[in-house]
């Protein structure tokens, strides 16, 4: 009687949600691992088992490796800049001046809007507004559109991502700063800690939980960047700004090499999982109890 009722409860409460999850996440994930061992082209109903050939093709896909290197550079630049900037702005915002909530809400605005729209807005800013500034002022930096040369187009990607993500991280750092125990802060000041010393020895260690979260969020978002990449540069000029996630998409859906594309997607997943795992492990260890 009891097990029968348990079974009925399971079907009513757990099964519908579990079914969606399994059908959309777990089954495709496992099937994806299988796909890497086949030569499926996306259309034919025949899938031949080809062993590790797709991984060999991946090893030879020079563009994949260059997109991966580019993604690494991008992730490092974004993670450092976003967190430094957001930390500083959040610190200033919590110094107790008026309008703190207004600023906080304003900085967050870009996160409400999808990456596609943001990318297009900035495309206009880079290709028309900045160029106009360059023409009017003879300022070399802006004379030609940033999006037309590989290095500046990369810088544009970083700039837009930092602009967007920092608003989100500001929220988390502000929550961290407002949660700091005022008694600890006062005690530190009375003991003569001030300025950089107070920041390094008292504030930073106490802020480690917020830093763990922000690093994790920026890392995983930056690694999987796609929307802004697509709408801001589209990989141009000459595929020089094509990040890893975009390359995987192109490989599978444009070149129709689904097996190789999936092999690259799995490798990308493993890299992201390892790096975020290591990051969380390291920063968690640095967390202290107040």
């Amino acid at each position, binding site marked *: 009687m009891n097990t029968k009722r348990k079974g009925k409860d399971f079907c009513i409460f757990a099964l519908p*949600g579990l079914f969606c999850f399994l059908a959309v996440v777990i089954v*495709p994930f496992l099937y994806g691992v299988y796909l890497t061992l086949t030569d499926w082209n996306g259309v034919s109903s025949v899938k031949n088992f080809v062993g590790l050939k797709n991984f060999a093709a991946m090893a030879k896909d020079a563009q994949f490796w260059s997109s991966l290197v580019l993604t690494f550079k991008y992730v490092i630049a974004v993670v450092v800049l976003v967190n430094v900037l957001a930390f500083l702005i959040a610190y200033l915002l919590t110094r107790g001046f008026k309008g703190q909530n207004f*600023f906080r809400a304003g900085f967050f605005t870009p996160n409400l809007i999808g990456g596609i729209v943001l990318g297009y*807005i900035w495309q206009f800013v880079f290709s028309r507004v900045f160029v106009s500034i360059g023409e009017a002022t003879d300022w070399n930096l802006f004379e030609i559109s940033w999006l037309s040369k590989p290095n500046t187009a990369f810088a544009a990607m970083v700039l837009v991502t930092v602009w967007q993500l920092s608003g989100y991280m500001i929220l988390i750092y502000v929550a961290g700063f407002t949660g700091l125990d005022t008694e600890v802060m006062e005690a530190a000041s009375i003991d003569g800690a001030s300025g950089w010393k107070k920041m390094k020895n008292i504030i930073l260690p106490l802020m480690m939980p917020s830093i763990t979260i922000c690093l994790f969020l920026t890392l995983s978002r930056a690694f999987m960047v796609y929307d802004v990449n697509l*709408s801001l540069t589209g990989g141009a000029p000459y595929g020089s700004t094509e990040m890893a996630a975009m390359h995987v998409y192109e490989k599978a859906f444009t070149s129709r090499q689904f097996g190789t594309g999936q092999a690259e997607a799995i490798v990308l997943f493993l890299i992201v999982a390892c790096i975020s795992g290591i990051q969380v492990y390291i920063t968690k260890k640095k967390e202290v109890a107040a």
Partner: protein
Amino acid sequence: MNSSSGVQKRSVRTFAMAGMILIFIAYMFPFLMVVINSLKQKRDIIKSPFSWLFTVKGLSFDNFVKAFNQMDFLNAIKNSLIITVSATAIVTILAAMLAYFIVRNNNMLTRIIFALMVASMIIPFQAIMIPLVSIYGGTLNLLNHRLTLIFMHVGFSMSMTVFMFHGFIRGSVPIALEEAAYLDGCTHTQTFFKIVFPLLKPIMSTTLILNALAFWNDFLLPSLVLTDKKLLTLPLSTYSFYGTYSADYGTIMAGLLLCVVPLLILYIALQKQIINGVVAGAVK
């Protein structure tokens, strides 16, 4: 001594305030450009994108009319609304029930289910999209239906939503209330919907906001599922609109502004809830 440090403190504060205002203006600059140029014609935009002054052709709302029609704006908004509202509602109910079941039946099976869900949160969408298209497009032939997209949104957001409900139910829903309900003769289903579900309101505002924002703005998944022009969501129709009109700056700016305005209105109305929801979602 005391007063001089007070003066110093005040000047530091003024300095910080000034810096903050400058940074803030820099942050808002792109939006300002969109607003200004959405009312101008192409020639005036190229000549000077900075202001409303000195235009040859003057200012008008023509761009908005054009963008509104070319994007099929009403239809795109309708599609986005249908998909966002139904997916958010379904995932909220199903995830709350699943999380409740896991918390109240602590055994091997539920522990495995929960661990699997938590572990799956690290999988990026790109590692799933190719087999997803292969299964739902090839074998089952279910692409180009709104229901398919809703189902996938629900599936992808399930683990995160269950995780948040799970923490909340375990921490703040007392089992005594449920026991009283059973004594009064309620079934499990009645107890859940009449007693437990209303208690979940605080965490629900967080999951609702996070899920709705994610569904509304998602581009990659909808672009793989929906290609029929009638079904396009707002980000998708923005994308195809931009592809066609990318040189027509004024119309583009008006179109982008049309996409942003509904969100801004909602943001101004629900600012506090949205910010609290996002912070709570990230910290958990």
